[in-house]
């Protein structure tokens, strides 16, 4: 069990998302940064890379492990203190029973995934443990975590024998315990650019599905301008501010399906990039779709950060997704 002493600004249970029920109106939800979700699960030794984690935002508060556990925090560079001692992010850490973890502000990045060996174990709703905070469904009581919540840790994420002490010994033997993973192995290309401390994050996007709603000039503007993340951004969508994207005849459409990464242009000509908690349908035309490989980087940006767009083909997008997957397999090879 993980007992929440103080929850941090926004901490919720998330996993790989609620798939297969969008046609019934369920939002997908899941971790905003799917790369960090998989990496955190791999670092602790979970076979299920989409096992449920605690998603942290900006900081993570204080929590207590009532039993011995192995955890890892990935995503932003959070400041972690376990019983008063600094412990690394981006690596597996052993916490003895009764130890307290304090997760301070992230020096870089916005969101973190705290995975635990065995997996965060709340009841599944339609095959997912993710919290839909908008509709108050799933996860832990359908809401963000609060003081005194007790979050169960399960064993479902481990296929073979589940043994915390054996896992600890195995990691210690290989000099992997309480150490950050090698950044070259851990960082995905999209998130990598961001961690190099660059101000501008370039998001690759596939044109469409409704690019013809916008003028030729708008396409050029989108590809040559810098857009700023606004404070109105949340898990539903990243709202950007920058040069207006002109539509040919208004951007209202007959409501249709939305996917994560859809770049909707609202009536004021500003882009909104859909994120994990987006509605299943929407009424604004979508000029482009950010590729799945670059959504993790977007999820780590804060208000004020800058993005640009570059159009790529679906083939290039798929190659980028494959490269990230192979990177995760390499990480898995190291931490299996």
């Amino acid at each position, binding site marked *: 069990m993980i007992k929440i002493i103080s929850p941090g600004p926004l901490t919720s249970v998330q996993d790989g998302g609620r*798939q297969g029920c969008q046609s019934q*109106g369920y939002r997908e939800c899941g971790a905003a940064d799917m790369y960090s979700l998989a990496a955190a699960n791999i670092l602790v030794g979970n076979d299920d890379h989409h096992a449920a984690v605690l998603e942290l935002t900006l900081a993570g508060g204080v929590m207590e492990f009532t039993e011995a556990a192995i955890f890892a925090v990935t995503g932003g560079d959070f400041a972690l203190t376990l019983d008063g001692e600094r412990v690394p992010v981006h690596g597996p850490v052993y916490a003895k029973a009764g130890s307290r973890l304090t997760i301070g502000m992230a020096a870089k990045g916005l969101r973190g995934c705290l995975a635990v060996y065995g997996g965060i174990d709340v009841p599944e709703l339609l095959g997912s443990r993710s919290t839909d905070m908008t509709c108050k469904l799933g996860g832990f009581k*359908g809401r963000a975590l609060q003081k005194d919540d007790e979050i169960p840790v399960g064993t479902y994420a481990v296929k073979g024998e589940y043994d915390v002490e054996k896992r600890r010994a195995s990691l210690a033997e290989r000099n992997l315990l309480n150490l950050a993973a090698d950044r070259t192995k851990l960082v995905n290309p999209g998130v990598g650019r961001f961690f190099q401390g660059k101000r501008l994050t370039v998001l690759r996007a596939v044109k469409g599905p409704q690019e013809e709603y916008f003028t030729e000039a708008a396409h050029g503007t989108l590809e040559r301008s810098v857009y700023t993340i606004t404070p109105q951004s949340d898990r539903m969508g990243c709202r950007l501010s920058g040069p207006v994207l002109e539509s040919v005849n208004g951007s209202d459409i007959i*409501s249709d*399906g939305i996917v*994560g990464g859809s770049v909707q242009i609202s009536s004021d000509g500003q882009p909104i990039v859909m994120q994990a908690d987006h509605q299943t*349908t929407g009424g604004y035309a979508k000029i482009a779709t950010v590729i799945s490989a670059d959504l993790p980087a977007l999820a780590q940006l804060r208000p004020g950060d800058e993005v640009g767009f570059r159009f790529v083909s679906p083939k290039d*997008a798929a190659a980028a997704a494959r490269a990230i997957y192979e990177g995760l397999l390499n990480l898995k090879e190291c931490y299996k």
Partner: protein
Amino acid sequence: MRITNLNEITIKPAGDSAVQIFCGEEISEAVGDKVSALTAALRDFFAAEKIAGIGEVVPAFSSLVVRYDPLVTDYDEVAFRVGQVAAEIEISGEGGGQGNIVEIPVCYGGEFGADLADVAAHNGITEQEVIDIHSGGLYRLYMIGFLPGFPYLGGLDKRICCPRLKSPRTKIPTGAVGIGGEQTGIYPMESPGGWRLIGRTPVTLFDPDGILPLPYKAGDMIKFVAIDKAEYERIAAAEAERKEKLRREKGAGV
């Protein structure tokens, strides 16, 4: 009978994990039929052929989205398969768009339909006439969205249309049946909203525990059936029992 020109569909990429298929540029029975037929045919095809990496098929008013896993398949294969299936439908000419007729019992007026009198007054008819017209119609379910289980229905009689409330209610109860402009619908869960409330259904549309399935899907026709308060209570109790029974059965299966 209704499928004529599926070769007019447009297939576009929606990123690297979905394709979107456009079947027309209007909300109409004809376009809705194309969407329903293609949705049903794609689901059948993908299930029968076991094409790896294909995810959900999600219909909307005039388009649908097919999700896929870019690590397993790609845009070209999915677009090719969609074209293949669409061409087959055209040849067979068998429409899958008729759907089921789903009856939704509604207790109109009183405590369940606080705005029924306003809707009647706005249209210069009696409350009973609003009920008769509303429960006399057959409504096409074009798509589910906005909230889990929220049905976008077409076919509201112009004689009972009514503008939305100027300031939306902060809380509309589960099962509320309302009219907003030229649309009618049901709130499957408690939510804020600006529609005029004319009644309430005791049927579970959306189950937060995921035990009871949605009673309808896109492509179905909805028929509202007027019931009184005693019937409302009876159905509400039966729904709770149905859920308990299913919960036990599911629990026993684990």
